[in-house]
């Protein structure tokens, strides 16, 4: 028997995209501010540095400063994406892994091209599920809202490009605005979710306020922060 096993693993990571060629004092102040306000989302989550808009950011010291600033705040920065050859060499020297990612979906970027995409589609296709969604099942509403009249079990996944409504207990994962629609919301009768996500921003059961457990809630994005609010 082999002394080890190789298994596939999916990993959800957050990407921090650098939009300025020469990060200056105001960049670092903004970064620090962002990390402080969204610390429950960012701290402890795996993070990659997205260098797509800044092919000219190849200054060794500057890049080191950016990496140090992120790491020193307790963020788990492990890789870079969309790096050019020069950047990749630098990143590797700093111990970061070049990650190949097909396409990322930060909220504000998609907001601009989402309407263009929906314009081409004939119509919205909402989906209604009248049974419980069992562990291991995955229900996807690719072009519209998803309504579940029943519960979503632990280990089950419900995904919609629009809103998700669950008239039961949400024990599994729910991902609304899967194509990047930041206005999508999740509603559920009773919250015991493993994961909640809107337009790629997520919270896991560990980071969900325990006071909200078993409550009727809605989940939405506000200032690029995932908010969970009681609805009575």
């Amino acid at each position, binding site marked *: 028997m082999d002394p080890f096993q190789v298994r596939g693993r999916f990993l959800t990571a957050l990407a921090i995209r650098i939009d300025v060629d020469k990060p200056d004092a105001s960049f670092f102040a903004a970064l620090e501010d962002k990390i402080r306000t969204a610390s429950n989302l960012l701290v402890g989550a795996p993070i990659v540095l997205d260098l797509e808009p800044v092919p000219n950011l190849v200054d060794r010291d500057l890049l080191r400063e950016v990496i140090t600033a992120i790491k020193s705040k307790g963020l788990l920065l492990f890789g870079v994406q969309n790096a050019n050859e020069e950047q990749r060499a630098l990143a590797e020297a700093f111990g970061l892994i070049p990650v190949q990612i097909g396409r990322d979906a930060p909220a504000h970027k998609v907001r601009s091209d989402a309407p263009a995409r929906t314009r081409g589609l004939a119509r919205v296709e909402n989906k209604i599920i009248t*049974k*419980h*969604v*069992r562990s291991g099942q995955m229900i996807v509403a690719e072009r519209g809202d998803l309504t579940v009249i029943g519960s979503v079990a*632990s*280990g089950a996944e419900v995904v919609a490009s629009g809103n998700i409504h669950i008239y039961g207990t949400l024990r599994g994962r729910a991902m609304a605005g899967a194509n990047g629609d930041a206005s999508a919301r999740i509603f559920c009768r009773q919250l015991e979710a493993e994961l909640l996500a809107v337009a790629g921003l997520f919270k896991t059961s560990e980071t969900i306020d325990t006071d909200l457990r078993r409550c009727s809630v809605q989940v939405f994005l506000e200032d690029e922060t995932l908010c969970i609010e009681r609805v009575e």
Partner: protein
Amino acid sequence: MTQLKDKAPLGKVIVITSGKGGVGKTTSAAAIAAALAKRGHKTVVIDFDVGLRNLDMIMGCERRVVFDFINVIQGEARLKQALIRDKRLDTLWILPTSQTRDKDALTQEGVEKVLNELKEQFDYIICDSPAGIERGAQLAMYFADEAVVVTNPEVSSVRDSDRVLGLLASKTKRAESEGTEVKAQVLLTRHDQRRIDAGEMMTIEDVLEILAVPLLGVIPESPAILRASNVGMPVVLDEPSAAGRSYETAVARLLGEDVDMHMEGEKRPGFFSRLFGASA
């Protein structure tokens, strides 16, 4: 073999399944089959756990196995040669499996052919599923008319049962080609009120809230079950015990009888009537 009844056999296929291992599938399959047979229904219990055959030991017929389920599927023996008649009940038969082959020896066509042949002779065909959700378990449930999902009152067992309920609703012949559902019920085993009171186990209400299917019965954790397995005796045929009586009640309910569940040593007598509605 003389056919005592004039009417054609019922030919109902019931799978005993769970997802998780060690929750009491084989014990339950043996007890349910024996309780059905005891009531006069001609019953056969089939072991689908190819390669890890246990049912014959629980039924106490391991030394009488010559041919098995796999031999029949592969055309090496006739069904009649592989069926073992129970020595205690003449309405109970066992179709053991192979210990030397693996689950790949099961084919959908082969299983269907054997089940169709059994349907012509038996009222109830009890399929003892292997653990897991792979080939063996999928074929055990594929042709089922009804399912008994054996669950322990603890989170991993409940989650696995939920997964199996999802498969029963989608990966069965009824679901795929007939658009009807396999009727599924939960059998809660290893129930221990003391451990529930101590907060170490889930309550029956919690389990049912998650699984959202009817409760067939509650089997108490009992030394009688271990004893019965060790001597190769289905617990309902062994000395009278709380576990044995619970299985008999579960089988009465499986047959559609309106029997109230009551648990021996139950501290809250009103509980079951609250769950199922009062019945006289």
